[in-house]
């Protein structure tokens, strides 16, 4: 086999997610009354990027064969915090941003510490810590409100050179600054190895605990970046329980659509980003098709069902039934 074939095999999930996204987005924009305009793209990317950050966060944890059901709550908590802190002069705003990101990192680190050093199952740990984070968010913002540095917010949700959505650029920057270094670092590899086979990784002297811890902590950071963007996008903070849970569940859907294996060890945040964008486009499709309003939720559900079933087509190629159980 040639090198590029191995590369292709490795990227299959990501490419499939990319393909699904492109198809859906093309259907969307070609039916949009306004067409493929800078405004439409900006609107879509502002919305998509939020989930993309949360999905990236989820990816990190899922790679270690864990799951983080608190990402949505970290996202809310940091949103509420940002609505207090990211305001004022440049220095104050900068301090606020650092504090918000630090808080996210801390939340992720707490999850990681409990799961790794406390040896608890990630799913129930993060259900519990998610409740705690939500409680704190509610303390911070019993009612929706607060404000944010609007210049910064407009800059990051606006457009560069009148065409490129700034939020997409920010997403790209985060990929380059957080994801790329992590995935190529020793710790990142340790996270993958631990997710694929913790025992093997341990026996090979891989620093699995540090790798997993880094993954959880960075997941908190990425969720916080999402929370920050939510604040930029809405100018306020709100502790909305349902929407926190929705982001958590959506992030799982995005991760799976993005070809990341829930069994750990496989997939990339890039795939998850396209998974998130594709997932968001499902909602947008409602806008361009004239559905009876009451049928819209069903339509969304069915599209989601179809999208998640696409991967099953690979099944028809399986000639050895044991491959079902990998």
């Amino acid at each position, binding site marked *: 086999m040639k090198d590029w074939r191995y590369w292709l095999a490795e990227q299959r999930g990501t490419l499939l997610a990319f393909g699904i996204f492109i198809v859906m987005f093309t259907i969307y924009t070609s039916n*949009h*009354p*306004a067409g493929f*305009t800078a*405004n*439409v793209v900006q*609107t*879509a990317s*502002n*919305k998509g990027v*939020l989930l993309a950050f949360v999905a990236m966060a989820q990816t990190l944890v899922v790679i270690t064969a864990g799951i983080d059901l608190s990402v949505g709550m970290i996202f809310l908590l940091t949103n509420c915090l940002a609505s207090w802190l990211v305001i004022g002069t440049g220095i104050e705003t900068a301090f606020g941003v650092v504090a918000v990101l630090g808080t996210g990192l801390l939340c992720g680190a707490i999850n990681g510490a409990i799961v790794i050093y406390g040896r608890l199952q990630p799913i129930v740990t993060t259900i519990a810590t998610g409740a705690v984070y939500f409680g704190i968010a*509610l303390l911070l*913002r*019993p*009612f*929706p*409100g*607060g404000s944010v540095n609007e210049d910064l*917010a*407009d800059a990051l*949700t606006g457009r560069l050179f009148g065409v490129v959505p700034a939020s997409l650029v920010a997403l790209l920057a985060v990929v380059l600054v957080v994801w790329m270094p992590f995935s190529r670092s020793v710790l990142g590899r340790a996270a993958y190895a631990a997710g694929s086979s913790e025992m093997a990784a341990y026996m090979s002297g891989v620093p699995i605990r540090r790798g997993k811890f880094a993954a959880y902590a960075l997941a908190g950071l990425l969720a916080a970046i999402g929370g920050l963007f*939510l604040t930029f*996008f*809405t*100018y*306020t903070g*709100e*502790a*909305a329980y*349902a*929407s926190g849970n*929705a*982001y958590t569940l959506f992030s799982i859907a995005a991760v799976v659509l993005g070809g990341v294996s829930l069994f750990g060890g496989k997939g990339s945040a890039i795939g998850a980003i396209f998974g998130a964008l594709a997932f*968001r486009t499902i*909602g*947008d499709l*409602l*806008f361009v098709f*004239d559905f009876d*309003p*009451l049928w*819209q*939720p069903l339509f969304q559900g069915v599209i989601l069902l179809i999208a998640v079933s696409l991967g099953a087509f690979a099944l028809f190629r399986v000639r050895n039934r044991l491959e079902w159980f990998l």
Partner: protein
Amino acid sequence: EPEIVNGPSAEPECFAPWAADTQFFKFPKKEGPYRVALANGYIANTWRIQMVQTAKAYAAQPAVAAKLKEFKVVSTGEDVPAQISAINNFIDSGYDAIVVNAQNPTAFGPVIKRAKEAGVVLVAFDNILDTKDAINVNVDQKGLGELWANWLIKHIPNGGKILEVRGVAGTSVDTDRHNGIHETLDASGKKWEVTEVVGKWDDGVAQKATADAIATNGPFDGVTGQGGDTGIVQAMIDAKHPFVPFGGETENGFRKFCAKFAAEGLKCSSAGTGPAQVAVAIKTAIAALEGQVVPQAVKLPLAIVEDPNFKEGEDYFPDQSDNFFVGNSFPTCGINFTAQEIMGQSKENQ
């Protein structure tokens, strides 16, 4: 960008200003027919479904339909950014007016800016917007709390133990109602001991919370609940709690109980505004597009029914679902739907 003008507004009966200092808007008159959109958030409860159905029915009324080129509804779920994006999309697609049931009162600043620049009329109802730049069709939530508290004060002359079942924590609706209740009780000068539990506007949750409260803190001399009232009464029945005065919302199930057990002590004040407020919101949007003067904040009348005035077939419907909210008409605005015709409509259409 509307002109700020002096009142009174067109159809002052219907478009009642919220307060004495409420501003009046006059938008530049646009030629009809109009493209109007409804940007709903959450959809999966009866109130919202009833609301969407009412909106459709209203837009289909011949007089209204004549003014509309297009009426489009999108429900985006609980996610605020999705709703913001939907509104942005409506603006970009050239809709003339957008009616919103906002998932968050404060998050729409950027959207309001954009709508203003594009000359799009934005009307919020039910969950309204914290702004003076868009039209709000408003229910006096605090007034509702005051009403319930006054009802209890009237029926429990010497003060006593009250169970307050609250709605969804953190929403302005819940807070306003709660504040209205407490301020009024405190001002009464009587001694009240209030047990608060959270019912989340949901019968099941409210029922469970009530059952717990009765078991640990009961019995109570009076109850007030926002949403989930049917469940609250059910919990009282299950716990064999004596029937006591009750201030609650307008669910059909609740009113059925009120009518049935009034003689045994369940003296109810049932008040609120039904999902038909969406029709008022649409009506307001059209009026604004036609260049008529409208208040920035429209105050909706409360639909109040109090013991002993519960009339079968008018205020409650024994054969119908418990879940819908009675009081779906705003006669002053010429909006006269009954809830059953709304919820039954597609069946008849088939």
